[in-house]
């Protein structure tokens, strides 16, 4: 899985690509932990290049969401491909996360 980040004002845009499964979970968790870091995180996660997410990947995102909530920050996901969206829908993760179609909507949703 590839992980990249860029800053758009106060919002950190994280781009994850490939497969978020057990083999990628630990490095993804560490990378997200650095982004959540200090302060009040505002994170938009670009998932448009994420092809696959497993149970282990969902747990990584759940931990991120919990840490962001505890820090009184916000995390918004965008660009989910259909099979990942299906996993979110069936698992109820679409009720945990705010999901937007693109980066602009995700950044706007932070306000």
């Amino acid at each position, binding site marked *: 899985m590839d992980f990249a980040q860029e800053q758009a004002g106060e919002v950190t845009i994280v781009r994850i690509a490939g497969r978020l*499964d*057990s*083999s990628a*979970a*630990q490095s993804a968790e560490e990378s997200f932990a650095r982004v959540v870091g200090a302060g009040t995180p505002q994170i938009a996660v670009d998932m448009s290049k994420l092809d*696959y*997410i*497993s*149970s*282990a990947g*969902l*747990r990584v995102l*759940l*931990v991120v*969401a*919990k840490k962001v*909530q505890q820090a009184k920050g916000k995390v918004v996901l965008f660009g989910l491909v259909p099979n990942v969206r*299906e*996993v979110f829908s*069936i*698992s*109820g*993760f679409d*009720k*945990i996360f705010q999901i937007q179609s693109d980066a602009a909507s995700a950044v706007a949703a932070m306000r």
Partner: protein
Amino acid sequence: MLGFVEEIVLLQLDDAKGRFLELPLSAAHVVLAGAAVMELAMQNRIDADLDRVIVVDRTPTGDDILDDVLQRLAEAGELSPASALECVTAHAGAYHERAVRRLVAKGILREQDGRFLWVFRTRRYPVVNDSEQREVKARLRGLLLTDEIPDPRDVVLVCLIDACNLLGLVLSPHEIEQTRGRVAQLSRLDLIGQAMTRAVAEIRFTVRHAASPAY
């Protein structure tokens, strides 16, 4: 800290009677299988998606029950979540016995006149230390009564407690009614937990209808 298997065995023990709660036996076995499989997922030995459960690391955990389950799943190859649970459920009776003996050996349960009794009578929550018990109970209550985002282990615990109809250990009857939607939402968050909840619901449905008059 106890694993989910020991935890769910303890939670199903009615200390007053020294006997295990009367879940339909097959449902109790599915829950125990679910506890083992979800524990292996937490320990990064297996992974799952909507269609399959995959062994991703065969390294033994050091827990004889989990290692037995891991080996069975590895030998079975790729299975659907429901089939993986079935594969483990077939051996759950033996795992239950082993878990009880282990709890006795750890000094958490004692056996007396054929009955099992808690050594620490008030212990109903996931850790042995008293202060941690209170903390876990408070955390689960907080989780169920608010919109707090759960951590993955709490999701599994909610799945297991709900599947065994043991929410009363944490909530009042009124709170159980209030939190039905929340419990259902949290129970969906773990894909293996979902399969377990469905299997237990099917068993309950079958038992209920088998017990009803046919006219």
